[in-house]
């Protein structure tokens, strides 16, 4: 591709993403009082979307492969456990991530 074509492609990809990010704001731009249904969605969507994002992060795991599944399950459980216990976000995330990085190197050596 020529440089111009690359620039056009990048602009179009950027437009596609921006469209999805801006659309809700454009739709309700001139609305003084949000409809009840939208206000309700605004309240309950964050929790549901966080659930979706957790599943989204697990989607690439090959669930037939013990060397992949075991580190993932243990580390996610560790993050949740430490967070429910101490409720310090950075701590829970750091413990889980270090554990994961160790386990993906060690478990495949042990798992049959």
């Amino acid at each position, binding site marked *: *591709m020529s440089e111009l*074509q*690359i*620039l*056009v*492609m*990048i*602009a*179009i*990809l*950027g*437009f*596609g*993403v*921006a*469209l*999805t*990010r*801006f*659309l*809700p*704001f454009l739709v309700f731009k001139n609305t003084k009082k*949000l409809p009840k249904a*939208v*206000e*309700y*969605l*605004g*309240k*309950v*969507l*964050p*929790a*549901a*979307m*966080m*659930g*979706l*994002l*957790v*599943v*989204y*992060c697990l*989607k690439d795991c090959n669930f037939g492969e013990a060397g992949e599944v075991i580190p993932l399950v243990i*580390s*996610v459980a560790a*993050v*949740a456990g430490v*967070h*429910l216990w101490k409720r310090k*976000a*950075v701590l*829970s*995330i750091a413990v*889980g*991530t270090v554990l*994961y*990085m160790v386990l*993906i*190197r060690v478990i495949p050596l042990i798992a049959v």
Partner: protein
Amino acid sequence: MKKRFGKDFYYALRMTLPVMAGYVFLGMTFGLLAKSEGFAWWVPVLMSLVIYSGALEFAAVPLMGSFDPIGALLLGIMLSARHLFYGIPMLKKYEGTKMAKPFLIFGLTDETFSILSTAEPEDGVNPSKFYVLVTLLDYIYWVSGTLVGAILGTAINLNLEGLDFVLTALFVVLFIEQMKTKSGILSGIVGVAASAVSLIAFGKTYFIVISMAMIASVLFAGKKVIDRE
């Protein structure tokens, strides 16, 4: 005045530390990948500056081999559809943000949305300023990671495999925080269940759009039970 800014900045920095680790690492990986595919260093950097969506940028690398504007537009919208649901909770929060609003919306990535829809600014911190700082810091992490990866290329030889788990961990933590809110428990369960079912039933490519439709329908159908505030 200066001291005040330092405090706000420090708070936003602390909130975004996990994103820093995840974005710098993934941004570097992206820059490296694009370079190994034969692109000039500025291509991945410009992509991160303009597109600013990790999932889409990685997916677009193979697409950038041939000129296909329609394909690019469809891919861009398909892979970003989940953002449609990020704006709705932020409509109210971003109401008083004035000039900064377009930038806040442009920068509403998965991670920025997760933090800003869950966290409240510290007492005395101006909300708009907090939103801008978090959004800006995340943007800087992603672009600078890409820049480092694109320039250094394979000169980096650190074995950091698995560091991207930091973002999974961030979502798990924020999911728990959301579950602790009044109407969060049930809607969180709806989110996980709908996504898991549709991932198993429809596979990786289409499950997000289908999950979104399922989530919205169940949330509306169960409004009486879920809406507890």
